[in-house]
């Protein structure tokens, strides 16, 4: 672990009285796609921006490619590539000009033509930035993160605000980078994104890492159980639901009951029987294999979605 390309130890960042990051620690190994998963405001972006050298930490120790982002910021910037959140380019800058300009800032560079082709922006090479669609802007942002053939890539919410089809396009791009063994640190608040793209995930909430591991490990840890979500006509105490057949855990989340079961068929039958006996009624029922969301709910009692 001593040679991890990216090391974060007990990182702390305060904004006034608010502690945005409260002792975050993790390592990212070379060739790994590492995800920070958590709701908005959990401190993911702050963490990433400290690693990029954009913000000053208030405590802890970080190292990126062997550099301290504070002290060796100039050297570090040659080694990293980033697609930031809430950023843009001048409206009247053309796609190809942007790639060439940004490539010119680095000692090591990749051929902008090749990036244009790879990110499907050939037809847009002479388009102004303002003429691009949301998806095209994001593809350009990813292409620009690669202009210096960086050792570490930072993608901050790479698919936020994009529609599902465009989101899948971006997934394909990131999966391809993963196959090429690029080291990527990404943040997301989409569960499917973390499960699909990341080798390992740190679940972050209120400035702390509350769980860390591969998506498979994390889900196994939460019991590897099937998730049954029901809405009822009348409130029900979760204590009673917990005692039903095959139920590993049951709790109320936002007016619905999330039940984890080892034996879903038996559990469903017993839920129905129990409700009948109580004079209660099922309004809706959903069954899903366990996801990282369940891990989050288990740890925090809240949903990951806003």
């Amino acid at each position: 672990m001593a040679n991890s390309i990216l090391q974060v130890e007990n990182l702390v960042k305060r904004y006034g009285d608010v502690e945005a990051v409260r002792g975050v620690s993790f390592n990212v190994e070379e060739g790994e796609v590492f995800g920070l998963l958590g709701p908005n405001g959990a401190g993911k972006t702050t963490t990433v921006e400290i690693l990029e050298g954009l913000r000053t930490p208030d405590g802890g120790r970080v190292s990126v490619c062997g550099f301290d982002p504070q002290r060796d910021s100039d050297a570090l910037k040659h080694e990293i590539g980033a697609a930031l959140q809430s950023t843009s380019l001048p409206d009247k800058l053309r796609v190809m000009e942007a790639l060439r300009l940004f490539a010119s800032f680095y000692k090591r560079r990749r051929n902008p033509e090749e990036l244009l082709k790879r990110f499907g922006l050939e037809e847009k090479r002479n388009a102004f930035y303002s003429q691009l669609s949301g998806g095209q802007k994001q593809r350009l942002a990813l292409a620009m993160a690669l202009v210096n053939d960086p050792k570490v890539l930072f993608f901050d919410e790479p698919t936020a605000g994009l529609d599902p089809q465009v989101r899948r396009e971006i997934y394909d791009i990131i999966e391809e980078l993963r196959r090429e063994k690029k080291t990527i640190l990404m943040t997301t608040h989409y569960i499917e994104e973390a499960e699909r793209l990341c080798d390992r995930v740190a679940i972050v909430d209120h400035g702390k890492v509350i769980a860390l591991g591969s998506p498979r490990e994390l889900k196994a840890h939460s019991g590897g159980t099937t998730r049954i979500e029901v809405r009822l006509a009348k409130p029900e105490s979760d204590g009673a639901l917990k005692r039903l057949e095959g139920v590993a855990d049951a709790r109320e989340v936002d007016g619905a009951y999330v039940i984890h079961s080892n034996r879903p068929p038996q559990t469903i039958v017993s839920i129905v029987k129990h409700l009948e006996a109580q004079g209660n009624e099922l309004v809706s029922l959903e069954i899903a294999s366990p996801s990282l969301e369940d891990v989050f709910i288990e740890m925090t009692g809240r949903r990951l979605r806003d």
Partner: protein
Amino acid sequence: MNNFTNLTRMRIQLALRNKMFFFFSVIFPLGMFFIYAGIFAKGDPQKVSYFLGPVIALNVMGSFWGLSATLVMFREQGILRRFHVTPVSATDMLASSLLANYALTLPTVFVELAFARLVFHVPNLGNLLSLAVLVTVGTVSFGSLGLVVASVTNTMQETQVLNQLIWLPLIFLSGATLPMGYLPKVAQGFAVFLPATYLVSGLQNALYSSFSVWQLSIQIFSLACWALLTFFVAAQLFRWEPEAKIPRNAKLWAAATALPFLLLGIWENGNGKILNQAQNAYHSLDRPSSPSQDKK
């Protein structure tokens, strides 16, 4: 150096694609030129020559307006953040804004000089070296002032309010619109605290009275010092991030930029050299035979 050159090229390209730029940096100054030359000077070559300094001064001083607005827009839209994760430095960013602005200001100045010579038959354009030096220090210093404005304001609205506050005394009390000799004594006493006064006076003396660089050393030296100071302050206060707070001592830094002309103003109020020069040039307009007509 490489980053600086490439950023300068980008800024020039972007400005040339911007309609607002054409209005404020080309149409507007040329419009002012024709109002001064055609209406105030009534096409009289001697008077056109007298007003040419103030017209070019307005053009040069206008730099601060565009530079502050562009930099604030770049910060607000998160464009600067994108540059912040690259090896580009704050000095690259600021210096390239200044150089691009200089390169974009020069053509309009040339066009104004050409119109004065060819359309209004101004017999000579005075001391061209003095003119070149003053246009350069003027563009750089007022451009730097714009960069400071961008750093002490948070939103475009604040920037525009501050720009207005700076612009009004700059144009009305510097001799740029109302000739210095025409202003009441109190206003003249105040005018010598403004950098704009030295730029207007310098340009007017260079163009109308053919003063050499040496004769204009006060104007040139004070503006050059001011340019260095404002650029240094701009670099100290520069912020990449839209949410980054204005440093607590920012007002102090910004106030420091007024220092050179505060000292010079006190000195000038006692010695009155600049004001006398302005007075002489103004009164020479009424004399039937003025230096420029003698040469005919």
